[in-house]
């Protein structure tokens, strides 16, 4: 068996009584861009700080090419990092900031100059060498921070919500830059974010964090199509949840009943306890079809329309089931049943049980 590039092995971190991170396992290949996605307080930064060596895990190990990293102090780990807050050295110019890691490594003057130029070119800030950080915008500062973190050619780059302080437009632009730089260099990137769109846009794989644990690791489409937990389903993509009762389960599929009499059969089942009981049925708003008239040939879920919102390329319908639960449906603009649809109308919903999920 080949040795994995980077292995996070059973990490646990306690701060006094608080368990910040619990049983985190992850294997990362060289050159991958993996995001840690999760709400604030879910342990993403803590995991990153353990990788950086600023925190020691209570339990577990980090291995790079099979060797433990834990015995190496931060400054000898040769890891790059871009922080959430702006961390340029305020008293040094942009050029000197990028040169800092090289000078610390006692590189020759010519090498330093050459490398600083290369890095400025990589982050497209040629000509900014002599600027002081305070005179640059947040986006520019994070580019410099990126250049500084990559100047010494680290095998791993850690990024802790580097774009969260920027406005939407700059963020899109820099996400694009990060992808480009990831392609141009072969650095392995671990990227922390709480923004699912950012995670989906950037990453090869996403690790979804919840309450200090990794709930699921996978590509964006995998997480969307086959969420392992209700939390992942909620966090990645939009979701509708309807409470249901599981009447029968076998081989990872379940038959459920909604609202007392609407039966759905053969839905993929998660967290199987093996016993029938209460559960939640996940539907994706954009995978639900809507009909204005009682359908013939299939049994639709009858609902009453509460609200219709036009959102450009699609239309958002909020509807209520007979027993009072809310379902949101996203229909493409131009869908045959939208025109004239308004509050109070009756409608029938249809979805494919194979695409739904039951969480027990």
């Amino acid at each position, binding site marked *: 068996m080949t040795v994995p590039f980077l292995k996070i092995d059973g990490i646990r971190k306690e701060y006094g009584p608080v368990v910040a991170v619990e049983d985190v396992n992850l294997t990362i290949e060289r050159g991958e861009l993996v995001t840690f996605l999760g709400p604030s307080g879910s342990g993403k930064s803590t995991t990153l700080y353990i990788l950086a060596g600023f925190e020691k895990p209570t339990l577990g190990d980090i291995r790079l090419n099979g060797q433990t990293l834990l015995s190496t102090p931060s400054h000898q780990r040769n890891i790059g990092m871009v922080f959430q807050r702006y961390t340029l*050295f305020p008293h040094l110019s942009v050029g000197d900031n990028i040169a800092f890691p090289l000078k*610390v490594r006692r590189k020759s003057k010519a090498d330093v100059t050459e490398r600083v130029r290369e890095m400025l070119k990589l982050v497209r800030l040629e000509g900014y060498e002599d600027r002081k950080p305070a005179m640059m915008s947040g986006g520019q500062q994070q580019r410099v921070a990126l250049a500084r973190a990559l100047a010494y050619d680290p095998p791993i780059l850690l990024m802790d919500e580097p774009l969260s302080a920027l406005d939407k437009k700059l963020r899109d632009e820099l996400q694009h830059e990060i992808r480009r730089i990831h392609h141009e260099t072969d650095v392995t990137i671990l990227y922390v974010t709480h923004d699912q769109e950012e995670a989906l846009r950037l990453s090869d794989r996403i690790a979804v964090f919840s309450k200090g644990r990794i709930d699921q690791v996978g590509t964006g489409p995998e997480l969307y199509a086959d969420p392992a937990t209700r939390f992942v389903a909620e966090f990645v993509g939009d979701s509708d949840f309807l409470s249901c009762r599981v009447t029968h389960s076998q081989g990872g599929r379940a038959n459920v009943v909604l609202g007392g009499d609407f039966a759905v059969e053969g839905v993929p089942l998660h967290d199987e306890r093996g016993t029938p009981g209460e559960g939640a049925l996940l539907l994706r708003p954009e995978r639900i079809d809507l009909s204005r008239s009682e359908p013939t040939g299939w049994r639709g879920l009858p609902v009453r329309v509460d609200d219709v919102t036009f959102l450009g390329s699609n239309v958002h319908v909020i509807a209520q089931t007979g027993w009072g639960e809310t379902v949101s449906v996203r229909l493409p603009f131009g869908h045959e049943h939208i025109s004239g649809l308004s509050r109070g109308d009756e409608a029938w919903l249809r979805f494919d049980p194979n695409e739904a999920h039951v969480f027990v």
Partner: protein
Amino acid sequence: MLLDFDRLGWWRWALGGFTAAVAAFLLLPIVFIAALSFGSSQWLIFPPPSWTTRWYSELFADQRWLDAALNSLKIGLVVTVLSVVIGLAASFALVRGRFRGRETLKALFLTPMILPVVVLAVALYAFFLRLGINGTMTGFVIAHLLVALPFSILALTTALEGFDKSIEDAAILCGASPFEAKMRVTLPGISAGLFSAAIFSFLTSWDEVVLAIFMASPTLQTLPVRIWSTLRQDLTPVVASVSTLLVLVTIVLMLLVALIRKGLSKP
């Protein structure tokens, strides 16, 4: 409305006039001393019959004044260095440490600032008599360090709290050892706080009277002690000239602080 200048009506003239009067009251003694130091009257008649620089000549001709000033300077500089170094180390512990009792420790470090100096002076006097360091440079330095250190710790903990530790962490990940990162990144980053700590420490020592009165010996006096003992005898105008020079020193240091703050806030 009471906090809007435009809507105060005639009250604003009353308030402005009163404030101007208080400002004059605060400025009066300082301007007065300066004028007095150039007055010719031995008896401090004001306005003086004529103007002279005689008191300055007398001051600079008197070796005892020069020695006292030199002692003050020496003690002040040693105290400044020790206060900043010890205060910096303590501030790192107070700001960065995650141990219990941190607040209590900080309060302990600041108490010499709030206790009546005379109590500390008497206590140290007794203690130093036992140790046999009363009237020595060491005694002076220790005594002044005790009252200068709180200022240093206040300035430096504030500066360190305002300095994002992530910047130091970034330097460490760049390959600098924790010590190197502090020297090359954190200290330059809090240089304004370091300057404030140094200047406040120096001024505290330079101006300190009460401890100095107890620490002094006939052969070792600081400038304030010399002023004090002179004043206890008579109100010679020479004191006015010393005082004027002291005010000048204060103004220069204050301007320095203002310039440094300004210069460092927008590099």
